[in-house]
């Protein structure tokens, strides 16, 4: 079995939001406010015109971190949130009772309530829409103009993601919480 993760060359990100739109079209995310599986976090520039700190304005593409030790899974009373055999954190909508414990437990704010199914929804690494059809990339990765994302198998030493992580320094978000996130931001 694979152990899927994602590396992000986040310095490439220009905040064009192609990823967000591709995700919505690929996964049928409703076009409503606050409905999104992925996003680009923008930190606004600091300073006073014309002395703006260039480094202060950053774009931080993000989504579910598919933690190996996921707080959302721990709190789910119905096991709707579970790990797939490939190490992805998934939600089974038929079991979700919308208690929203998971939404509160997630340190990354990666979950939202789908107003159509009235269940919790989030990034699935396109496992049902693309991976199940033999695709090897997620929609956000494939569409990206500057190729921020590299999705792949962390257990395969020859995969591009493993090679990238072997060669580059990276950081993970809120690692100190012990969540073991599988999104790697290449420095």
């Amino acid at each position, binding site marked *: 079995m694979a152990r899927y993760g994602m590396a992000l060359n986040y310095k490439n990100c*220009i905040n064009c939001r192609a990823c967000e739109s591709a995700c919505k079209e690929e996964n049928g995310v409703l076009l409503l406010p606050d409905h999104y599986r992925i996003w680009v976090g923008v930190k606004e520039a600091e300073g006073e015109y014309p002395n703006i700190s260039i480094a202060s304005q950053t774009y931080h593409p993000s989504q579910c971190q598919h933690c190996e030790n996921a707080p959302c899974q721990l709190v789910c009373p119905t096991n709707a949130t579970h790990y797939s055999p490939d190490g992805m954190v998934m939600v089974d909508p038929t079991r979700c009772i919308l208690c929203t414990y998971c939404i509160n437990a997630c340190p990354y704010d990666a979950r939202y309530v789908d107003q159509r199914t009235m269940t919790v929804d989030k990034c699935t690494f396109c496992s049902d829409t693309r991976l199940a059809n033999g695709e090897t990339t997620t929609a956000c990765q*494939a569409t990206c103009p500057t190729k921020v994302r590299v999705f792949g198998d962390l257990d395969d030493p020859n995969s591009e993601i493993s090679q990238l992580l072997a060669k580059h320094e990276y950081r993970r978000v809120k690692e100190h919480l012990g969540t073991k996130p599988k999104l790697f931001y290449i420095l």
Partner: protein
Amino acid sequence: MKVEISRRRFLQGSVAMSVVGGVSLSTSSMIASASAPAKKIGNDTKKVATLCEMCVNKCAAIAHVRNGVVEKLDPNPLFPKSRNMLCARGNSGIQALYDPDRLKYPLIRDGEKGSGKFKRVTWDEAYAYINEKLTKILDEEKDNRSTVAFCAGEGMAEHTFKTFFTLFGSSHFLNHASLCLATTVSGYSLTIGGYGQADLDNAKYVIMAGANRAEAIVTPDTMDFFKRTNGRGAKLVCVDPRFTNTAAKSDKWLAINVGTDLAFVLALTYVAIKEERYNKAFVENYFNGFETYKEHILSNNYTPEWAEKITGIKAKDIYEVAREFMAAAPQAVYYQGRRTTWSKNDFQLRRAMALFSALGGGVDVKGGICFGKSLPLVEHEVPAPMYAQAKPRIESKEAAVVGGSGSWVAFRNMVLEGRNPYPIRALFNYKHNPMHNMPNAKKTEEFLKKLDLVVTIDTMPSDTVMLSDVVLPECNYLERTDPVVSYGGIEPSIAQRNKVVEPMFESKPVMEIMRGLSAKISKPLFEITKKYDEDVQSAIEDDDEETVYAEFDLTKAFAHDQEELNVHAVEKYEGAAEILKEKGVFYPNMNEYFKKTGVNDYEYYPEHKRAYSVRNLKFNTPSGKIECVLDSLTKKGIDAMPVWKKEYEMAIPEGKFRFITGRHAQFTQSGTANNRLLLNLVPENYAWINKRVALKMGIQFGDKLEVSSPVGKTTIKAYPTEKIGPDTLFFVHGFGVSSSALHLAHNNGGNDAKILEDGIEPMHGSSCLHDTIVAIRKV
């Protein structure tokens, strides 16, 4: 009397048309991948290679279709130009296709002009109506075809519409060029022999001034470049009155006073020349008139200290940028940009930019501005008829050089001011929204109301559609095969938009619209020509009417299907037609050259096959060299060399703002204003106002502002930010639609066309978009 048929045939020139000559093609191969009709049940899926039309870039896409419905658009990695990507707009193409507000049927106005009241008619009724109006107009105007004007937005089918214009015989074609990049293209072309392509895959030092590639995406520039910024191979200096996303990716952001870029470039040039940092061997061998230019720059004392006072950029920064640029040259580019004309000196600005780039030797070289190769298509020359009564273009004297695309603003204003030497009575409009894309919308509205007949071909009920008399619904780009196009460049290729699904409702591709319209009007219009054109009368005496009519037959250009024409256009490349249908992209040796090099990355051409240097150091200019001095322009009142003039320094009265407009990565001008997905990302536009100024004026985020100028006003919410200077106001173009038939876009945000003043620059009569002073008040 012997009629000089030859004059018609040859002196008038001919129009290049891709008309097929006896190419036969099996029906099965033509419709092999054509759309299957929608099935109610079942799971019929297919993939079609097509090209995006959500902006001008034409990125290659793969459409996934299930039971006749387009479910997803994915990037097509085969196209060197778009480099395996689709941006937010590309992804939202499905929402454009299935937009419930789309134009569905031919319409004829059924109320006051501008009332937005239309009645649904059949295509034949629409053509008959146009025919009736046109024959009346041309009879009254004694066959002066130029009384009917044609305008078009950018698009792959613009060529087909333009063919109709050429055969029709009017002198007036107006397109986006004079509202867009006319000065940039000509500034670079007349100086270094072409607009070129900045090799951002290899440049080491890039100055982007005004060009905002992180937001105004251009392929392949955006994709190539931002993988290399932030200390990863390319240094970026961003010069902009706003802190844009591009500025956030830069090594140095220089906030510049609006409209003063020319002073900045002249000072960079001064440093390069004065300190002798330019590429001496290159200048000696390939510059024409360098000594004169050098003397001009030095004697005018275009020093960084001088420029600091005008531009607001510190002299020490100008020294540093000039020195660093020349140290990195020739892998250094003053990026051409391709946006609109900003101010009166725009042509000279582009000249100065091109000359500065060339001083480093970064022209026709890897990492510099490259010209690339093209893959020529087969074109069939078809003679265009000549109409003796057609009078010349009315606005040709309004600027030094008014080319084939005209000066839209000058043309409109002449008609409004009654300065037209003969009446302008009708307008054919293809995929163009002058109500929204031309400064001073009030004048455009008056202009459109003044015309006897406005025929608009479009997909959406834009503000211009609402002021039209006849509306012809074009199908969406996913519903048609368009003319195959060759894209020259460092890695040239040919690409084709293939029809993905059948047109919905009664919409049609332009080729079919032109076919139907020309069949209706060709004969009746010839009758009028016969009545007033003495040349034609004598020709009929000499030959017979049928022979003469054949020349004036408008239908001849539209007899073939686009698929057939495309096969013919690429016939010199073996197997290309089939590959284009199947894969959407073709270039010689593609099978051998195209390689996947990583999960995201592809190689299109091996390094040694890329067309970095093609000119053999002989440039496409009159002297074959880089042109410093353009003496030929002086008799038209245009300076031979870039000069800074006091009049370029625009005073901004206390409490007012200089208005600037621009783009972001989620919308394409007004064309995407009603797109559900894009509105989900960016619900409306906001006016950028300096935070400290806003605080002083009691303006908070989200407060409604009325922005007014001498020509009009618009309402928009405020976004106080330090990313803009205290005397500048910005909002992104494309919002604030008036048309109530666009349900999501209607009255959503601010409309810059309503407040922009309509001044033009002297070279091409291009509209100056950054020369408007505005006032604001909270409402």
